[in-house]
């Protein structure tokens, strides 16, 4: 199989040259969470790599993935998740890019059976001419009633030259489901920045403080929450 092109929706905003260089990719890591089990994983992408995971979450099982996508010219985290009856999936992802970095988080979350829940929180901070992308598809099968799914997607652009792509997508075949999705792309509040500076905080620290608040909470519940937060702050410090 040849490397994907931009015509392939899942690779539409990718750094195609970097993808070609990495091609062919190894088979995705396959994770099966047995019925009633729990699974947690932190993916720290700090060296320009492509992570592909297939996760099947069994009946009543839970899986939580935390992602910090910050390193290399091209970093991609791709999750293909299938939820069985009353399973739960949580994703908390932060991507922070500057320079010419291309960073992306791609998810396909399939509610295959009834009563499963999923929550995805994605925050991107982009400076320079960096590109940050989130493509997130939630598919609900015909008999997956009482599905409860949430997607919260926000991106903050530090420079007008940076790009954020966000595509929360729903494909629902059941008729008794709750699927919420919110998406916002913005800039730091100028009045807030001035307020902080008027109290003596330097412009860089003021930005860092507001960005810290922007990504706060995403790593909640991660085993290495402190390490993730620290790495995120260090990267933010490089950008402001």
């Amino acid at each position: 199989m040849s490397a994907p092109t931009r015509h392939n929706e899942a690779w539409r905003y990718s750094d195609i040259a970097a993808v070609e260089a990495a091609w062919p990719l190894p088979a995705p890591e396959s994770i099966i969470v047995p019925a009633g089990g729990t699974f947690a994983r932190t993916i720290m992408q700090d060296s320009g790599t492509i992570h592909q995971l297939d996760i099947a979450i069994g009946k009543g099982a839970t899986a939580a993935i935390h992602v910090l996508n910050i390193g290399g010219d091209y970093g991609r985290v791709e999750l293909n998740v299938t939820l069985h009856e009353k399973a739960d999936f949580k994703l908390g992802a932060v991507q922070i890019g500057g320079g010419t970095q291309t960073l992306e988080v791609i998810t396909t979350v399939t509610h295959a059976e009834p009563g499963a829940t999923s929550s995805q929180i994605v925050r991107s901070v982009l400076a320079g001419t960096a590109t940050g992308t989130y493509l997130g598809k939630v598919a609900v099968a015909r008999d997956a009633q009482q599905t409860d799914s949430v997607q919260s997607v926000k991106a903050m652009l530090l420079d007008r030259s940076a790009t954020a792509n966000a595509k929360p997508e729903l494909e629902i075949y059941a008729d008794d489901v709750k699927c919420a999705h919110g998406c916002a792309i913005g800039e730091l509040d100028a009045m807030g920045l001035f307020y902080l500076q008027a109290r003596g905080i330097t412009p860089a620290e003021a930005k860092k403080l507001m960005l810290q608040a922007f990504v706060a909470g995403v790593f909640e519940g991660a085993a290495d929450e402190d390490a993730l937060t620290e790495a995120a702050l260090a990267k933010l410090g490089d950008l402001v």
Partner: protein
Amino acid sequence: MLQINNLHANVGDKPILKGLTLSLNAGEIHAIMGPNGAGKSTLGYVLSGRPGYEVTEGSVTFNGQDLLALEPHERAAAGLFLGFQYPVEIPGVSNVQFLREALNAQRKYRGEAPLTGGEFLKVAREQAGALGMDMDMLKRPVNVGFSGGEKKRNEMVQMGIIDPALAILDETDSGLDIDALRTVGDGINRIMRKPDKAVLLITHYQRLLDYVKPDFVHVLDGGRITRTGGAELALELERDGYKELAA
């Protein structure tokens, strides 16, 4: 302490301040009154360096320094405090974290050692207590969900913690009920009425001046000071209005 000389400033392309001259000495409290659109808030923003407020002519000297050459955070470290008319909400950043960072950034700029967490909390507790604000509010995100009165009270707590040399208070009295007005007035007197400090009170109404007695009252109209007097000028304005005065 502060010398403003022939200050002209634009907001966007629009001239707002048109030759404002004003001088404040240490130990003095000045009130600036004037009708809507006179340029009162603009003066506060220009002095504190808000982006988009462009000085086109004139000079401002603060304790011998060219104030206009400094960045907003440098002006704060030099001892200037702006009490905002509309204090800004900053979700996700706690008051305590914000104020500790602000105070220590100022101390660092002045070459002083930072306060430890414990030292800072002691100061914060003192100031919050004096203004009747409980510590739980200090732990909440900056101004988020605060009522108008609470926001103004929070400005005064910040002023107490930062302990500036010069406070420019932009309509700190607006949105306050009678009790809160007294609390805020007491706060201004306690924190700022000292021989080495000065206050510029920007206000529409005389009522704050019942609690904080000004040494001088200035009328700002059309971007310049049109009249200066003592505390009695405020009463006169309250009685006759700005129109009468201009006539």
